[in-house]
């Protein structure tokens, strides 16, 4: 910027004229006078954002994370979905450290990865340090045009050990959904039954970097698109891992893409420390298996507990 602009808060001439007309005018509180209205401050922010974007004047990290774009464009539309539609309640936010690397492991469900978006938004808006969760996504995401670029810009990267270790050792909060497509695309009758947790690669990454694992249980996401069928032929045609049939999709067309307004709970559990196993712990397959099972069991038990406390799918 070429220098600070001076925006006159009030016109001295007009003020003087007003004062001469009403001599007995009650002086307004000074604070109110100096305060620019909210809409104008927002306009200033918007314009400076637009200028930065046009000039390319923003920073990207090595994974392609564009913080400026994420905070100003990608996150705000999630707010009504988070607060009004799903009425998400988070439990145990204090289990996420204020700084430093940590690995959040969560259950995956809901046909479309809205659970990942909501968890990410929840941490960014409700955690005292407003941390950005960096999620590890499937190859399919990054292969898809537009979606892949958007995923990288919002801080996501490919689910592979080099990337996970790199993020964790540079002190980032990493989110992983180890069930993958098996979890998100499972039929409605299997809801809240955790699928196999991949090959435990995420545990190895946490062990190697000595970062804590935070189990995260999400209740409510299973009911947003109850998947009652899977058209294999169409899935193969489009190259999708599954082609969902819900009570409203594809029957109602685009209307069927509106998620059902279930009430959500996201609980972050006690961190599981991984720095107590010493060096080369990641090379011990038995330890990796045991830790994977421990994380899985914790999430499953928390899910059952949250479900027994829930009285109604939509009202909570």
């Amino acid at each position, binding site marked *: 910027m070429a220098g600070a602009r001076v925006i006159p808060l009030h016109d001295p001439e007009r003020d003087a004229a007003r004062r001469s007309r009403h001599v007995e005018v009650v002086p307004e509180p000074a604070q109110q006078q100096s305060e620019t209205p909210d809409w104008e401050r927002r306009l200033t922010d918007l314009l400076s954002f637009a200028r930065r974007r*046009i000039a390319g004047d923003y920073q990207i990290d090595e994974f392609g994370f564009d913080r400026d774009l994420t905070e100003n464009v990608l996150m705000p539309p999630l707010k009504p979905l988070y607060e009004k539609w799903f009425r998400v309640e988070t439990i145990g936010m204090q289990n996420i450290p204020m700084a430093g690397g940590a690995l959040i492991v969560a259950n995956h469900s809901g046909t479309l990865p809205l659970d990942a978006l909501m968890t990410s938004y929840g941490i960014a808006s409700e955690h005292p340090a407003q941390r950005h969760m960096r999620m590890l996504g499937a190859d399919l995401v990054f292969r898809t045009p537009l979606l*892949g670029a958007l995923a*990288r810009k919002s801080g996501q990267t490919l689910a592979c050990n080099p990337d996970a270790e790199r993020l964790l050792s540079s002190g980032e909060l990493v989110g992983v959904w180890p069930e993958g497509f098996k979890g998100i695309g499972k039929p409605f009758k299997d809801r809240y039954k955790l699928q196999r947790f991949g090959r435990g690669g995420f545990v190895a990454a946490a062990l190697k970097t000595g970062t804590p694992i935070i189990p995260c249980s999400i209740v409510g996401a299973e009911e947003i698109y109850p998947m009652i069928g899977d058209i294999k032929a169409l899935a193969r045609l489009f190259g999708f891992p599954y082609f969902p049939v819900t009570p409203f999709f594809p029957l109602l067309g685009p209307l069927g893409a509106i998620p059902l307004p279930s009430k959500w709970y996201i609980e972050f559990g006690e961190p599981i420390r991984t720095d107590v196993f010493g060096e080369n712990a990641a090379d011990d397959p038995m330890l990796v298996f045991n830790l994977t099972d421990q994380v899985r069991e914790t999430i499953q038990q928390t899910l059952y507990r949250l479900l027994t406390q829930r009285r109604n799918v939509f009202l909570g």
Partner: protein
Amino acid sequence: MTPKVVLVTGVSRFLGGHLAARFAANPDIERVLGVDTEPPPRDLLRRMGRAEFVRADIRNPLISKVISTANVDTVVHASVTASPAGPTGRTVMKEMNVIGTMQLLAACQKSPKVQKLVVKSTSAVYGSSSRDPAVFTEDMGPKDLPSSGYAKDAVEVEGYVRGFGRRRPDVNVTTLRFTNFIGPRIDTVLTRYFALPVVPTVLGYDARVQLLHSEDALAVLERATLHDLPGVFNVGGDGVLLLSQAIRRAGRLNLPVPSAAVPTVGGFFRSARLVDFSPDQMRFLNWGRVVDTTLLKKDFGFTPRWTTQQAFDDYVSGRGLKPLIDPETVEAAERGILDAAARFR
């Protein structure tokens, strides 16, 4: 160990020529030989000072004679190139890159005087795909081997260099995997690409681009030659630019082209002699590539002076690229709107 007699290949191009000039200015080096198939441009030749130019084809066994008679102890192989000369240049380029390297290495192996080999390679050896990790370290390989073009040449060249290293363990071999060069003086596919008024990109993809200032590249090659630093090193500036961001910083307009139309558009630009993109470089525009430079900083002992962003800005200002949308117009518009808003209050 400071080398006594240095042979530099590819001196008629930017890097080789300026490198030879730097060696010629170094009084510790007794003799500097520059080899290429065509003489360097006149201004480059003048810069090279006392360096001797040898017009030779490294594909020819004659190079062996040059190395042995001049008692060359250090060979800097800087001629592996990505930009073919002319429309039929691609086959010639491949021959120069691969066969040339084979001949040069054979000559080096024959000559017992050769103590050091510095190879200018490229980070293109890592390939570029959606299944790659975000950042490449030196121990990683490509997910699928590039089937043609510069990247494949570089993979093969590195293979021969490794073979040479096995057969002559007494020679210090330094392989430098450079990211794309940028700078006000160097002429590459990328510098020509960003100079287009309307820059075509692939619709729905935004590559992460890591760049290296050409002066940093020269400094790295010089350091590798003057010191004994064997190994494979990634060389790139700090930080990353997105392709769309780089285009905005250059003040160009971005023209997204659907993937299906990319070969046609690429063909058009090639036949119009604007930018000659090979298929592997097209893939680079999809995914981009970022390398880890920890080894360069720790073991090699070099930190690039320019970050990716600074190098790119230096290129933009050095080339005098006029932005299509003037930043001052944008700022004036911003100010105008804010003033108008202030009046409404």
